[in-house]
């Protein structure tokens, strides 16, 4: 009943898939942002898990995890700013209204 | 510092730099642009004069004080290049000669293309002519206008003009065939646009005609250029170059070379190594070898220009002189024999040393350059281009561009393919004579003032061809030397007079807005200064003694008299008589023109303003030169003649 690396990785995969599906299903821009956060979390989990199970990368894994967290924070700030801007311009947070890229 | 390299580079690229500077001007500042360009041409003129002074003091006065044959050899490009390469091989930049007016700098090393510039008595007068005429033409360009649009578009004009100057100067100073070709092509495009945009009513037709004709010539030159490049010049470069190449070959392809020891491999590499080059000096040496080899029934002993063999010969001679041991002598002789055998095998196998190759390439080069000269029947671009081009461009076209053809023949076609040149000398001379007569007759029939001047150019450039072509035997080499010098002098003289004539036609065109000779008359009374200046320039063109046109013509005709291809003296005599009789025709059409333009009365032109001070500034230098060069030709001949005579010396001395 040992907890192996695979367990953590599977957890990370669940988080990742949840994040991806979240991005795909939310029409609310902030919902999409939440999906992104989940995806990033999945990555962090994997980093930390790898770090734990491979002593030679112990520090690097954690450092990277930390960087990811920080990046996520930054990304969140920017994303929210964009969302607010979007809201200001379109008076909505429904990303389906942002279809300028439609071919 | 290699100051001569810097000077020559400045000479070539200063106009381009000024052209770039034009980009900084606001659109409205058209006069400022003109002044700026004028400054550019003036600076270039100054540089060329500085180069001339340095060349005179550094090369002519130092290396050829007495103008003996040894002096001429010492101041030849050949010797100066050899000394420079020697210094470069030794690697001590301190010994680098600063003042030898040749400079080499690797450019595209992979293909042995060098940035190789040099100046001698053949290129320098033409460089001076170019810078002077560019300056004057720029002076004449201040009121340039597009024919039908009426706007000036000065920036484009000046940029193209300056670019053209770079091209012309580069062509004259380049000693690498590839570089030469690039500059040659650089000239083409600006000229096309200058005619095609600022020209007269039929400018597009004239520009395209000019472009296509010249491009055709360029193609021929390109073929020859490639053919020369792919010939093996191994025997005509210094031993060190061969060794360096062989070493590289051993490094890269060592496995495929026979032999086990590095020494053996090196020796084998030396045998098979090929040296391809665009170096005009080396190619000329090979050309001379071809002349000696083919001219003496394929006898390798006649070849005296292969450095390795010459060294070995000198060694044998020195040993014999010193009464060295018989062993040493025989060993040296064996070495010499081996070298000769190698040379012989290469001479036999190399395509370069076949009559077919020499003849073909000579014809290609000749046609390529003859189009520029122009020689009948490649001359019909000239009248159209001249007629349609704006006045300053006509000046450049007649004054410099035509000279490039002659220069190319003297600098490239004759030295590299001398065997064919001698073989075809009578035909080339015949074309020259035909040009003289044909141009004179055709000029007589023209009613367009500019066309008349253009055809007179055809006629006068015929003297250049004739002077170059009158190959003579060693015993009469000074006759040919007269011819070559005469051809060079004629180029200079014609550069001055034809530019002057076109300028003067432009002056009257600005007032009358037509060029029909039958509609002028009586201009001498309202415009006495203009008439006086015109009379001098036209008389100079006519070849009046005491004017620059005369000296060249006389020298060429004198040399033609002694021209005896294949021992047939009557050919030379016939040519000389025809050329001499043409002076009557020349006088007829020039005087008839003067009569139709200046004499008589014409109320319509009664109040024409005389030539302005500005225009006079353009014309007076030409007038002064036309007279000074006619009265005191040593001014040019003194430093031009050694180089030209050296060229003749090297070419005639081939028979064993």
């Amino acid at each position: 009943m040992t907890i192996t690396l695979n367990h953590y990785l599977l957890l990370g995969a669940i988080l990742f898939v949840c994040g991806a599906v979240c991005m795909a299903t939310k029409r609310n821009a902030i919902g999409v942002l939440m999906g992104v956060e989940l995806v990033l979390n999945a990555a962090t989990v994997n980093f930390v898990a790898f770090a734990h199970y491979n002593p030679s990368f112990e520090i690097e894994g954690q450092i990277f995890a930390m960087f990811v967290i920080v990046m996520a924070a930054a990304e969140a700030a920017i994303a929210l700013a964009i969302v607010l801007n979007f809201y200001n311009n379109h008076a909505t947070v429904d990303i389906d209204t942002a279809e300028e890229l439609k071919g | 510092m290699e100051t001569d390299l810097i000077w020559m580079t400045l000479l070539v690229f200063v106009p381009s730099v000024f052209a770039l500077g034009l980009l900084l001007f606001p659109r409205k500042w058209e006069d400022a642009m003109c002044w700026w360009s004028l400054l550019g041409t003036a600076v270039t003129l100054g540089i060329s004069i500085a180069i001339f002074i340095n060349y005179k003091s550094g090369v002519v006065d130092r290396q050829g004080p007495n103008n003996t044959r040894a002096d001429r050899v010492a101041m030849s490009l050949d010797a100066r290049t050899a000394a420079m390469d020697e210094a470069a091989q030794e690697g001590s930049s301190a010994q680098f000669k600063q003042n030898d007016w040749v400079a080499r700098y690797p450019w595209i090393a992979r293909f042995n293309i060098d940035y190789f510039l040099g100046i001698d008595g053949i290129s320098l007068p033409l460089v001076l002519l170019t810078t002077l005429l560019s300056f004057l033409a720029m002076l004449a360009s201040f009121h340039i206008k597009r024919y039908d649009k009426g706007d000036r578009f000065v920036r484009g004009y000046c940029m193209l003009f300056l670019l053209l100057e770079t091209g012309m100067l580069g062509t004259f100073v380049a000693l690498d065939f590839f570089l030469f070709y690039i500059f040659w092509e650089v000239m083409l495009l600006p000229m096309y646009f200058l005619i095609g945009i600022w020209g007269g009513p039929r400018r597009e037709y004239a520009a395209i005609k000019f472009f296509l004709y010249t491009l055709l010539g360029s193609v021929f030159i390109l073929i020859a250029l490639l053919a020369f490049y792919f010939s093996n010049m191994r025997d005509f470069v210094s031993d060190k170059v061969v060794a360096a190449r062989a070493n590289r070959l051993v490094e890269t392809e060592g496995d495929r070379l026979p032999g086990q020891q590095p020494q053996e491999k090196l020796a084998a590499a030396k045998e098979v190594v090929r040296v391809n080059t665009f170096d005009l000096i080396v190619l000329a040496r090979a050309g001379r070898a071809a002349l000696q080899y083919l001219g003496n029934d394929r006898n390798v002993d006649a070849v005296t220009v292969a450095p390795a063999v010459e060294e070995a010969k000198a060694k044998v001679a020195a040993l014999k002189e010193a009464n060295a041991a018989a062993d040493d002598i025989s060993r040296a002789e064996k070495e010499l024999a081996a070298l000769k055998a190698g040379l012989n095998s290469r001479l036999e196998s190399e395509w370069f040393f076949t009559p077919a190759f020499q003849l073909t390439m000579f014809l290609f080069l000749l046609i390529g350059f003859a189009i520029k000269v122009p020689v009948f029947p490649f001359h019909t671009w000239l009248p159209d281009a001249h007629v349609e081009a704006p006045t300053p461009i006509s000046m450049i076209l007649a004054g410099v561009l035509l000279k490039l053809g002659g220069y190319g023949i003297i600098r490239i076609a004759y030295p590299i393919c001398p065997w064919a040149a001698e073989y075809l000398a009578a035909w080339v001379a015949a074309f020259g004579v035909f040009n003289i007569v044909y141009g004179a007759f055709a000029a007589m029939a023209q009613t367009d003032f500019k066309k008349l001047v253009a055809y007179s150019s055809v006629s006068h450039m015929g003297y250049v061809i004739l002077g170059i072509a009158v190959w003579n035997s060693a015993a009469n080499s000074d006759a040919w030397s007269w011819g070559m010098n005469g051809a060079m002098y004629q180029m200079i003289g014609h550069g001055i007079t034809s530019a002057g004539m076109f300028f003067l036609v432009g002056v009257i065109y600005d007032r009358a807005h037509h060029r029909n000779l039958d509609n002028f008359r009586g201009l001498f009374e309202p415009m006495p200064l203009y008439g006086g200046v015109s009379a001098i320039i036209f008389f100079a063109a006519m070849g009046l003694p005491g004017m620059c046109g005369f000296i060249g013509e006389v020298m060429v005709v004198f040399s033609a008299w002694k021209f005896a291809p294949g021992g047939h003296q009557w050919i030379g005599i016939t040519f000389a008589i025809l050329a001499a009789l043409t002076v009557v025709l020349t006088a007829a059409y020039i005087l008839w023109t003067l009569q139709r333009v200046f004499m008589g009365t014409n109320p319509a032109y009664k109040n024409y303003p005389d030539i302005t001070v500005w225009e006079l500034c353009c014309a007076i230098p030409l007038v002064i030169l036309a007279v000074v060069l006619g009265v005191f030709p040593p001014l040019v001949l003194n430093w031009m003649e050694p180089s030209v005579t050296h060229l003749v010396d090297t070419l005639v001395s081939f028979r064993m």
Partner: protein
Amino acid sequence: MILQAVLFYILAILTAVSAVAVVVTQNIVRAATWLLFALAGTAGIFFHLGADFIGATQLLIYVGGTLVLVVFGVMLTAQGPFVNLRISAAEWAISLAVGLLLYGVLAVSLLQVDPPLITTPVEDSRPAPGMPGRSLAGSKHLGAAMLGDRHTTPDATLSAGGVVGDQKRTKMHYLLPFEIVSVHLLVVLIGAAYLARAKRKRGVTP
């Protein structure tokens, strides 16, 4: 061991279920709440893996910072119609299918990773994950690593005060990247503030 396993499963299920809930919840405010749990669960996982500092960071930044920010954003924009933006069932189905497919692929690949990597080294004398005393990669250690000091005992690290033997400093240290990230963050914040600033010119629009 059992305890650890149980602890893992509790945390894992909490996290996973919260994450799934984020996805399926239609109300954005609720989704934010679920996300809070998911992130907290992840923090738990970190603690479980012995990465105390990371776990703490996760709690601080994510739960304390990012999420507040998100909620703040929700508050700002959460006006009537946007709270429940729905999508069609077909889209749901497609997304779900794709998500499951992705999960399958990931799972299959993960399970094929080489066994030696995923087993804890036998000779590792250190306490198992989650056990006290196995805090080799704790915050002090991490801090030392920032300065390039590694594989030393926490005490040694501390006593050395970051100034340790040269032979140990051969590996890379992360202070500079960290600083860069910090600056980056600052820049981003400023940028965000700029982007989100009120458009005075268009004051008419609500």
